[in-house]
């Protein structure tokens, strides 16, 4: 092997090593800083107790519940819309109109989340306030709608690329048998691309869990477990972003690392699921 090849190989190896190490390193960092919590046996208490600093209770149950309800609700809202949009783009109108919509969706992926936050604060929150007739309008529902808009491009693009991998022969067969476009979609395309659809949903869930800006700006910031759609909430991400404690030795501060670990695990789970799904897809292609 020439010297150049050796150098290039080592550079590539080093880059790969760094990316893997950083991912792992962050987890170790959080684990080490959160270690005192484990040592003091407070771990499970923290996960299950409410956040009441004045009573010396620093549990993150409300944040975990907020994160889960917010992310699942947003995916629930985004799913039918994205499925319809992807079907339009790839199946029903793949020509000019479809290409135009797809390029708009591509643009949407580049919109900074803070812009969605703005729209939430000035447009959506007042509307939700008027409809619900209570609170500031900054609540789970408002944040979930915005998060749905945020994650829908991911879903649409993944769905539509799954729809477009259907072998031409299948589509021809349905056409020649007198199937309509809708029948083609329901009976052949959708059953054939469920893995891609599931991967899109899971990846979007990961994005929704990890988003901070919308959670921070429009979810309402209340540290109570949300009981209805119109309740304000503070998800894990926004709780960390607040960095409330000044005393590095306080429990209040240490709990942030627990939040980080919980988030990390949630996203790790969804990323792992996507990996399993896409490796299954490769096998089938062979």
């Amino acid at each position, binding site marked *: 092997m020439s010297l150049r090849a050796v150098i290039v190989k080592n550079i590539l190896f080093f880059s790969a090593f760094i990316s893997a190490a950083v991912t792992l390193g962050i987890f170790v960092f959080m684990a080490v800083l959160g270690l005192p919590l484990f040592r003091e046996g407070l771990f499970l208490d923290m996960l299950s107790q409410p956040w009441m600093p004045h009573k010396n209770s620093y549990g993150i149950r409300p944040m975990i519940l907020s994160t889960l309800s917010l992310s699942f609700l947003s995916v629930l809202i985004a799913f039918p819309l994205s499925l319809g949009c992807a079907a339009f783009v790839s199946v029903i109108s793949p020509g000019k109109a479809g290409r135009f919509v797809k390029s708009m969706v591509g643009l949407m992926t580049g919109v900074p989340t803070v812009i969605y936050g703005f729209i939430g604060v000035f447009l959506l929150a007042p509307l939700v306030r008027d409809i619900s007739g209570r609170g500031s309008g900054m609540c789970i529902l408002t944040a979930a709608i915005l998060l749905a808009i945020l994650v829908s491009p991911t879903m649409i693009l993944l769905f539509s690329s799954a729809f477009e991998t259907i072998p031409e*022969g*299948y589509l*021809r*067969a349905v056409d*020649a048998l007198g*199937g*309509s476009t809708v029948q083609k979609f329901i009976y*052949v395309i959708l059953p054939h691309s469920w893995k891609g659809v599931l991967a899109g949903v899971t990846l979007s869930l990961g994005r929704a869990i990890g988003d901070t800006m919308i959670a921070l700006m429009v979810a309402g910031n209340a540290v109570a477990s949300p009981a209805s759609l119109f309740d304000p909430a503070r998800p894990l991400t926004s709780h960390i972003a607040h960095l409330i404690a000044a005393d590095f030795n306080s429990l209040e501060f240490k709990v942030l690392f627990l939040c980080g670990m919980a988030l990390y695990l949630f996203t790790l789970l969804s990323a792992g699921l996507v990996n399993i799904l896409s490796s299954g897809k490769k096998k089938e292609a062979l």
Partner: protein
Amino acid sequence: MEPSVKISIRELSFFYHRTQVIDSLTCRFRENGITAITGPSGKGKTTLLMTLNRLWEDTPGAVMTGEILIRFKERVTNIYDPRVSLPWLRKKVGMVFQTPNPLPMSIYKNTAFPLMLAGIKEKPVIEERVRQALEMTFLWDEVKSRLNRDARTLSGGQQQRLCMARALVLDPEVLLLDEPTSSLDPRSLSMIEALLTHLKKDRTIIMVSHYLDQVKRIADQMMALS
């Protein structure tokens, strides 16, 4: 259009991105029997088939002029009349492709698929027609014990006979075949030829074929595109 004529093509021209593949073709196909279309590659044989069930219409850059009339049992129809519905036309004019293209579902569901598309829901009716279609293509005895298996587990020849059964289950008046035996072993080939000889008695079959011996064996008329 005389009573013995099933399909009448007038002044048919076809272009793909301004390249002309068919140049003002006028011809007639008799009712029942097999018409073989032969000729070198690129002369529009498959395209001609696809003008008869309008399957070319989704192809980008394709343009067709001319007129095609088919004498269906109900009436003589200009198949490019805007009032003609595509699902209706394609139920009357079935098509089987060069490479077998079973759908990713069971043998039974593949055969029943056109019935489902047509909105037929009665289970006994579907079961009966599936059995008839599979019997017609000599497939029933081979698959009756494994109807719920994925159709893609069948051999190439069986897959093609399944596609035939699928095209026949709606009892089309016209059957378009695009080199249906080119990818098959001799045994499947002779089975399909036997099937076609049986079918041509009460069906109009238009078949693209490269094999002159096959054309001689089963075709009633021949049309060379050159």
